[in-house]
């Protein structure tokens, strides 16, 4: 089905613009047209569909489900809910406090908050359309595993010691946690459509320019930088390229959307999968503004530990995937 976009790009590049098929420039133009068209169309359709399905899921409902669950089941559920629950990133703090006040273990809350940006609909749709199903499933499974492990580790080191005092207090109290109530919202199909339309428009308006920018950079790399250069500089023989990629990705939180098309052209040039995965996940998960915001509810010590965990875990993953050569 995705072939349509290739035919469309063929037609525009070779028939409409009359570019010669063997020039590097035509190659880059073709890459740009095919990817922009493919990503934008798929984003519109899939974000709408995803939103229709999850319209009734919200943080309040998740909190209700997670309260009082077994700790280990909680890490798994927390990660899964984190990946599918829609919420505005400015809600991270209230959500964090809301979970803590319901005495959901801190690890479960962290598992939720870490997977949430890592597995979001935009990144998943883009990965799926550009890098294929195998890479996307791999990405999602690793994302969940990262969240679950982080949750387990945070509770293992008793991370709640390092919360802001008014939150740490919640876990020290002897009285039973307040019992939550949740009234499930019933939504008609029309209401779901309204929700999905609004969600899709908001996301589309926010990201379309980043998609175009990312694909443009990807197209330049595709057409202009020889594959041999990457083999020499970012190949799997340079062990240090993985941690460097992980670190370099930190400032890229600015827009993860722009990164995926660049990654596609890097992979095509032979940059190893592990390095690419580590870069991609680091860019999405380690967001400076998010970390600054979390400083209101936890000490820098806990935050630094979480950031260090992510960097170490991603480097290990990168090396592993480079070694097994998927």
């Amino acid at each position, binding site marked *: 089905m995705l072939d349509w976009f290739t035919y469309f790009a063929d037609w525009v590049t070779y028939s409409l613009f009359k570019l010669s098929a063997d020039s590097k420039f035509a190659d880059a133009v073709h890459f740009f047209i095919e990817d922009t068209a493919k990503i934008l169309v798929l984003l519109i359709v899939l974000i709408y569909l995803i939103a229709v399905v999850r319209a009734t899921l919200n943080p309040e409902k998740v909190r209700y489900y997670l309260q009082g669950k077994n700790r280990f089941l909680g890490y798994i559920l927390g990660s899964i809910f984190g990946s599918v629950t829609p919420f505005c990133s*400015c809600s991270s703090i209230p959500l964090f406090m809301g*979970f803590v006040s319901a005495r959901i273990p801190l690890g479960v809350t962290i598992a939720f908050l870490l997977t949430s940006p890592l597995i979001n609909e935009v990144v998943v749709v883009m990965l799926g359309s550009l890098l294929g199903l195998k890479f996307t499933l791999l990405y999602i499974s690793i994302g969940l595993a990262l969240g679950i492990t982080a949750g387990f580790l945070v509770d293992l080191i008793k991370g709640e010691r390092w919360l802001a005092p008014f939150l740490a207090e919640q876990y020290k109290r002897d009285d039973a946690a307040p019992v939550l109530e949740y009234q499930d919202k019933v939504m008609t199909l029309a209401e779901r459509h309204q929700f999905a339309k609004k969600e899709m428009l908001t996301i589309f308006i926010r990201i379309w320019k980043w998609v175009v920018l990312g694909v443009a950079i990807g197209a330049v790399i595709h057409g202009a930088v020889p594959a041999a250069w990457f083999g020499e500089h970012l190949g799997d023989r340079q062990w240090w390229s993985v941690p460097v990629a992980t670190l370099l990705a930190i400032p890229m939180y600015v827009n993860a959307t722009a990164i995926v098309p660049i990654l596609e052209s890097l992979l095509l040039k032979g940059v190893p999968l592990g390095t690419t995965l580590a870069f991609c996940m680091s860019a999405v998960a380690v967001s400076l503004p998010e970390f600054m915001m979390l400083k209101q509810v936890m000490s820098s010590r806990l935050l630094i530990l979480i950031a260090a965990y992510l960097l170490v875990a991603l480097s290990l993953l990168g090396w592993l995937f480079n070694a097994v050569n998927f």
Partner: protein
Amino acid sequence: MKNINVYGSGCKNCTNTAELIEKTAKQLQIEIKLSKVSDLQAIMEAGVVSTPAVTVDGKLVHAGSVPDVQTVKEFFS
């Protein structure tokens, strides 16, 4: 007179919500007392999990998004 609180950490959506409520109340000529609550502890104690959230006379009526005009009108009834 209705006591309306808008809970939020001061992000754009929260400001928009407060402005929308104010504007709609003025249009309908309803007198309200609107407060923006950004203190973290107060947000937690109100039981708010996703922002922007709105309470009317202490009762949580909306959370997680900027409400549409129709929803805002229902706050006043």
